[in-house]
């Protein structure tokens, strides 16, 4: 079996550090099958390590205590952003937020994804945090899932049993719980080709940098003149998992867009949301903000394209 590269944690911690990682074994397998095998073998004792911006703070706060961390840093097929035939965009799971921000492909096709990535954390976090981690960590307030769901993204998973694709919106089981199995590795996010004419993401947070969303609202639309042919609305921090506002979408499909209609869609999305009270805002306030930002996001996606 693969040997751990290092035994890390407290025993390695030098004097004077403020927070402590519990002990763990660190692996950096060189191939995907090896990584999956290691995960399958270790079961719940192991966790994938990407940028570590979620995993390591949680370990320091003693919220999780994996005995094994499996780094994916040597799995080079998990990197890169490519356009493929069929107008797909394939984003490697290890892509960092700043790589999303600076990607010419995304800037050209889906600037909205760059904008969403740019609103994450702060520059330090964006330099190490990854798209895969943002998805698998499965917190309700994560900034990438709403826009990716609105764009109809799929995720590519590889496990010991083989490969599968899953619609992103089905990847979440609950707050902090992803629906992918523990031996699976997310390898890529795929934005399929579509006729969507516009998309956008609004993050409403208490400050411009280093703040989690009070609510996040993404909208994507296909417009034909004044008529909305397709609408997809995805909400963050509005339910235990990122969610679609399907009734609001339904309301819009095939209708001529008016201010009143957008307002109604906002009300509808608010009614569908399952907000809760936390330190960042009350359930009522969040519901109100879902209403306001659904309208604003739709308006922007309709007017400004992928922005």
């Amino acid at each position, binding site marked *: 079996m693969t040997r751990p590269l290092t035994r890390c944690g*407290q025993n390695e*911690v030098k*004097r*004077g*550090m*403020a*927070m*402590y990682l519990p002990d763990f074994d660190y692996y950096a397998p060189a191939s995907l099958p090896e990584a999956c095998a290691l995960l399958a073998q270790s079961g719940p004792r192991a966790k994938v390590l990407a940028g570590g911006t979620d995993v390591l703070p949680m370990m320091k706060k003693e919220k999780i205590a994996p005995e094994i961390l499996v780094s994916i840093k040597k799995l080079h097929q998990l990197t890169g952003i490519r356009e493929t035939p069929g107008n797909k965009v394939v984003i490697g799971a290890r892509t960092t937020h700043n790589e999303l921000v600076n990607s010419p492909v995304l800037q050209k096709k889906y600037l909205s994804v760059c904008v969403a990535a740019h609103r994450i954390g*702060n520059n330090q976090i964006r330099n190490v945090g990854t798209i895969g981690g943002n998805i698998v960590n499965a917190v309700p307030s994560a900034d990438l899932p709403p826009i990716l769901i609105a764009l109809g993204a799929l995720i590519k998973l590889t496990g010991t049993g083989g490969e599968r694709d899953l619609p992103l919106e089905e990847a979440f089981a609950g707050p902090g719980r992803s629906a992918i199995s523990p031996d699976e590795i997310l390898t890529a996010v795929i934005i399929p080709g579509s006729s969507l004419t516009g998309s956008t993401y609004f993050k*409403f947070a*208490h*400050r*411009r*940098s*280093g*703040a989690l969303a*009070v609510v996040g609202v993404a909208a994507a639309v296909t417009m034909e003149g004044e008529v909305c042919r397709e609408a997809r609305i995805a909400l963050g921090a509005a339910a235990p998992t990122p969610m679609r506002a399907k009734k609001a979408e339904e309301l819009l499909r095939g209708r001529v867009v008016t201010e009143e209609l957008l*307002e109604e869609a906002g*009300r509808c999305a608010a009614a569908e949301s399952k907000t809760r009270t936390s*330190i960042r*805002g*009350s359930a009522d*306030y969040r519901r*109100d*903000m879902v*209403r*306001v930002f659904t309208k604003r996001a739709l308006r922007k996606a309709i007017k400004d394209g992928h922005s």
Partner: protein
Amino acid sequence: MSYQVIGKSVKRVDAVAKVTGKAKYTGDFVEKDMLVGKILRSPYAHARVKRINTEKARALPGVEAVLTCADVPHIKFATAGHPYALDPEHRDIEDRLILTDKARFVGDAVAAVVARDELTAAEALKLIEVEYEELPSLLSVEAALAEDAPAIHEDRPDNVIASGGYAYGDLEKSMQESDLIFEGEYETGIVQHCQLENHNSYAYVDGENRIVIVSSTQIPHIVRRVVGQALGIPWGRIRVIKPYVGGGFGSKQDVCLEPLNAVMTLAVGGRPVRLELTREECMIDTRTRHAIKYKIKTGVSRDGKINAVHITAISNNGAYASHGHAIASSGGAKFRYLYTPQAMKYEPRTVYTNLPVAGAMRAYGCPQIFFAFESHLDEIARALNMDPIALREKNLVQVGHKDPLSDTRVLSCGIRECIARGRELIQWDRKKALYKNQTGDRRRGLGMACFSYQSGTFPHNLEVAGARIVLNQDGSVQLQIGATEIGQGSDTVFAQMVAEVLGITVDMVHVISTQDTDVTPFDPGAYASRQTYVTGMAVRKAALEVKEKILDFVRGMTDIPAGALDLREGNVVYAHSGEVVMPLAEVAMQSYYDPVFSSPITSDVSNNARINAMPYGATFAEVEVDIKTGKIEVLELFNIHDSGKIINHQLAEGQVYGGAAMGVGYALYEQLLFDEKTGRPLNNNLLDYKLPTIMDIPDIKAVFVETNEPTGPFGAKALGEPPAITPAPAIRNAVLDATGVAFRRLPLNPQHVFEKLKEAGLLDRDGE
């Protein structure tokens, strides 16, 4: 008066050291085999410690000592950074033990360990078993003042720490004679300093059996005394060293770590022990800014003249007195120098609660009272249909004003010019007209607010300061002060003062920045915006004495009468013509090595500044309110200050940027939150406590209206704290202007604003 160095933006004397990382802070010093101390904190807001079992912790390998209340001196002491008062009536309240047997807030220190490293110390804390008897916790001032509330401190059964207010004039009569009476209630939140460098110290016992403490503190000389008091040992047995400090804003104007740190080193035979708080600890167990509730009643004549003001205040002090007795009363006293009603009554009450301890924080009670009163004034202006500026102008203090309750006089006052500048810069009249009838989702408004402050604490406290100068062989000088550089730039300002008097360049003044109570002269430290004004007097005096000695020495060398000589550009010159007599370096060499007349030139002075001076200023703000979300954007912010003569514009601007940014945080973002039932802190970290980032701060403009304060060194008055006072009320008044809704509670965060706008009917039932 024309100056060579005063008023110039010379480079900070510590700029290179700080930029290159050579400046050493408390955490940069390493002693061989330094041990680590850690604190066990109460999980309960109010609980008696019934039993502590430390056996398992002691048995953990690497643990050197475990301390509980029973292992440390049982002497109640006061922590506030004030000079000692010989008058027992005037002393700070002694209510603190090094480790307590009764927890009074979540985070109160009940035990401590010393171990070979942090990890072991943290492990050991987990092994200490504490049995608590929970007591009812008093988490609001109302709860603490309730009839049947238990006493948080046994010797204060009513939980009231202090109620030192004042009154002058015939309040009732002035109210009756007023055409209109206005009443309002205002409330501020609890915020924290969030200085860059967390509290940090280390201590050891030296070869002479003295306790040496290196600490990140604003008040080294006071720390020495308080440690002596807390441990019951002679003060001379303690030596405190302050290296570079990464900010304090008042949280280090208090003795937080050092007594425990001293006890820790004593417990391990004098070996060095470091005690460093994490940010999470810093935010609950150093100090916070008091939340204060005000009720204001004001009698006004129809033309806007304020006749009578009655203010009552209840200040939430948290679990220990710290500065508590002084802050509400100090805010009220400084406030008295802005407007001059015929009659005024100020009734503050400061109350213990089971929350973290409130203490000094930038502008010491003034951000609170000015938020309340300047908000109140704008409501009056609206009711009178008067421009807020016109209302203020009708009531402003005049030069020559004598405080009705003390001998203090206003000898310089630029508040009118500050207001005029602000009005012009923000284009008040044009924009006010423009924003009159707005209806959209985003509405703009303008607001302003004024303040008065003081330069130091006289006559309330002693204002003594020491300075020492040595003339070196090369004509440069060493300057030692007892004042504390904590990032604000005081060392640079002092160097400029010395350079000015001695006719040399600033790089010829070597400032000894490290404070060492064994070595440096006495000065209580960095607080009350006192150092440029108060310590500046001592520095000037020391420089003048050196100058006199130099000229006297030259007279001995040349027979030119000292009165005919002056110092300029590194030379001794004829005063009338500027003709060079000899380089200063030559005098210096002679003073050291002349076989007959050798007498190196030094001065060592103290100055007791039995005087005060009032700085003034105003903030002008323009905001845009998103009615649908409650989000407020500050579009423009001008802070206009009369701090007398500005010694160094660049440093002064730095103070204004930082202070105004803190004010923006206070207005819109920051608040420490606690669980309403348990008193546990909910956001004592920088992710959940929303300190604004640089991206959230508008482009602040710092403007100075320079007056010449006759009592100040080179005409200077205080500047350090004042920039933080008026942004909150100015922003709040701008929101009132934009929306017509009067906010009375800080902070104006989006949810609070949204809810109030909804309540006020700006949004229909479902918030549209």
